[in-house]
């Protein structure tokens, strides 16, 4: 450890680290543009200037290694004057676009211009004219005038995405950010360049001109797009999800997130099922929650009473939270009295950075909690064979993943089922075959935990109020009671269920709801 003195205060920082990250870790406010904790050091923006005693000139703190006994001044008049100069130079050609710029409100240039800028420009020359809306890729748009040439995006594409589409072209005050001709910025992580852009030069097309950021409520949650469980913030306003942005978690996703995960939020807003439906005289009609759950319990109960647990099976969604899975597991075993259950997990492409092959949020949780068929048990293939052979006549399907798995044959298979109870969040062809439809909630509407591919248990938080709709766990509880199970009184409380999980499941024994915090915790090694 090196002992250094910053603005008169002694602090200890690790040997060999750079000054800027150490100062930021200790809560010092040092303005910076080009420095990013997960990228290499470039030192081109000159904003993080500090005075170090013994050095002849001011120095950029991002590229100055700490040395024992260093004395640093981060806010003296000389430092402030230098920063004012840097800001004035950056603002020379920056357009006054703030009213139409999506970055306004979370813009470093805006913030530092308020802190260090002069209210009036001293130049009389016209501002530099460059291309305003460059279509650099399918998901990102570039405004060259707004770019301050910090090269964060260039380094991201070279070092993290390893595709290198972006570059700074020309020299001096003719420098512009652009793509190489015919090489669009189309890598799987392209919108991360918009995240790390300190100004509004690179912007996500999906969010472009949709909503001012200061109207967004941000909720810390987890991306449900694949088994990686990238930490995100859900941006909501007007009872809709407007965007997902990555949140730093060095154990999972650093500060990155893939484009497909980021854009996978529309199902929360669109084509939702809101009312339960029950099939009467051949057609689906809307029903009250009570009637729908009654009907589901009556039909499934009749089958198990006459033919035993072998006549029914459950296909479980890996998008349920651990708490819901835990309750559901009990309802399947105690209410449906069957051992025939499995999780439907869709697989897809994977890469070495973040994207995992399992395209579901909580496959690991379902396996940990025993909802997935173990070797020798009745798995999804056997459930399908049972349905086709006519031995399985009742099916409780949660989620639509199984429909995608069975592909073109799905319609024919589901048509054979005598009693089909489905719980899904959105309109889907599966619903047409159902006898009882129970609308489910999405990840943005529930509290709970997901377990990622590596076994890290992370909190999902409610970003949107589902209103009167009961949570999925609540529906399972009511169904269980209707099926004659003795369940403790009261509604579905994720926190209480999680406590029960930690008592009964070995892998989760060391965890507690409160200790998960915003970054989650790994479970016990098995």
């Amino acid at each position, binding site marked *: 450890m090196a002992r250094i003195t910053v603005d008169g205060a002694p602090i200890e920082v690790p040997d060999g680290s750079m000054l800027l990250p150490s100062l930021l870790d200790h809560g010092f406010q040092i303005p910076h543009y080009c420095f990013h904790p997960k990228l290499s050091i470039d030192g081109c923006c000159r904003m993080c200037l500090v005075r170090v005693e013994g050095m002849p000139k001011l120095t950029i703190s991002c590229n100055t290694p700490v040395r024992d006994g260093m004395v640093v001044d981060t806010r003296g008049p000389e430092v402030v004057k230098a920063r004012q100069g840097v800001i004035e130079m950056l603002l020379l050609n920056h357009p006054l676009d703030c*009213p139409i710029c999506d970055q306004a409100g979370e813009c470093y240039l805006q913030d530092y211009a308020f802190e260090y800028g002069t209210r009036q420009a001293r130049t009389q020359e016209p501002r530099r004219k460059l291309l305003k*809306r460059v279509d650099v890729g399918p998901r990102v748009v570039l405004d060259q005038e707004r770019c301050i040439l910090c090269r964060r995006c260039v380094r991201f594409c070279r070092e993290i995405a390893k595709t290198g589409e972006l570059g700074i072209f020309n020299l001096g005050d003719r420098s512009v950010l652009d793509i190489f001709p015919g090489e669009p910025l189309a890598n799987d992580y392209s919108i991360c360049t918009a995240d790390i852009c300190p100004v509004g030069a690179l912007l996500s097309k999906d969010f472009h001109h949709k909503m*001012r950021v200061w109207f967004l409520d941000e909720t810390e949650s987890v991306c449900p797009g694949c088994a990686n469980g990238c930490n995100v913030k859900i941006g909501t306003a007007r009872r809709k999800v407007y965007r997902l942005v990555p949140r730093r978690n060095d154990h999972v996703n650093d500060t990155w997130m893939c484009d497909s995960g980021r854009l996978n939020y529309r199902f929360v807003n669109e084509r939702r099922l809101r009312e339960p439906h029950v099939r009467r005289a051949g057609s689906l009609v809307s029903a009250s929650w009570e009637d729908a759950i009654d009907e589901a319990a009556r039909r499934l109960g009749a089958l198990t009473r006459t033919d035993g647990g072998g006549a029914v099976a459950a296909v479980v969604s890996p998008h349920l939270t651990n708490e819901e899975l835990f309750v559901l597991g009990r309802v399947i075993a105690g209410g449906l009295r069957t051992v025939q259950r499995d999780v439907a997990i869709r697989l897809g492409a994977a890469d070495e950075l973040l994207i995992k092959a399992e395209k579901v949020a909580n496959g690991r949780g379902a396996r940990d909690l025993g909802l997935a068929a173990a070797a020798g048990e009745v798995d999804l293939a056997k459930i399908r064979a049972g349905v086709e052979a006519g031995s399985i006549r009742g099916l409780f399907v949660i989620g639509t993943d199984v429909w995608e798995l069975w592909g073109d044959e799905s319609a024919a298979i589901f048509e054979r089922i005598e009693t089909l109870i489905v719980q899904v969040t959105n309109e889907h062809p599966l619903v047409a075959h159902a006898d009882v439809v129970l609308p489910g909630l999405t990840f943005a509407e529930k509290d709970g935990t997901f377990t990622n591919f590596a076994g890290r248990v992370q909190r999902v938080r409610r970003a949107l109020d589902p209103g009167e709709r009961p949570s999925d766990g609540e529906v399972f509880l009511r169904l269980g009671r209707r099926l004659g199970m003795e369940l403790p009184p009261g509604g579905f409380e994720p926190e209480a269920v999680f406590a029960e999980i930690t008592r009964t499941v070995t892998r989760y024994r060391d965890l507690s709801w409160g200790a998960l915090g915003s970054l989650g915790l790994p479970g016990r090694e098995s």
Partner: protein
Amino acid sequence: MAGGVITVVRRPRLRAMDTIGPLLILRGLAVTTRHFLRNLWGFLRGQPTIVTIHYPEQSQPLSPAFRGMPVLVRMANGKERCVACGLCEWACPVDCITIYPAETSDGIERYPEIFDIDMSRCMFCGLCEESCPEEAIVMSPRITIATTDWRGSVWHKQDLLVPGSGLAVRLEHVRRGYERTGAPVVGNQEEGRP
């Protein structure tokens, strides 16, 4: 002095004469007649002394400082000056403004697809006008906003658009008030933006 002194004004005691009804009627008629004759004389001389204004045919001249209903400035090309930046929506203390921005292919890049003001909620404070970086929302002198139906109290973009020329007096006042000199740097007055 504990408690101070309160001056109590009692009703004057009625004289006997004041209790005779027909006399009072005549006295009232005398006042009416006096005003009638004075107004008639003024009317004949061409200098009416009447203070009554024939609203709604006539109306009071309003000071440029008067804040009536907020309106949106329409540029010469027929489009709104508003770029849907959302500052007025944010500044509004009663949340009466609702904006849904959208993208256009022209130089301005951004416009309000929906711009609604709920006039039944508006309290005419003028914070929207003060926060607007484009001089696009202005407190007009208009005060006739009554409706017979609450749905009519929500004004949509097309109802709110007013040519900028009609608001020149108010805009001048606003620029002086907020120490803005001339038109804003971005957004050239009527022709659109650079």
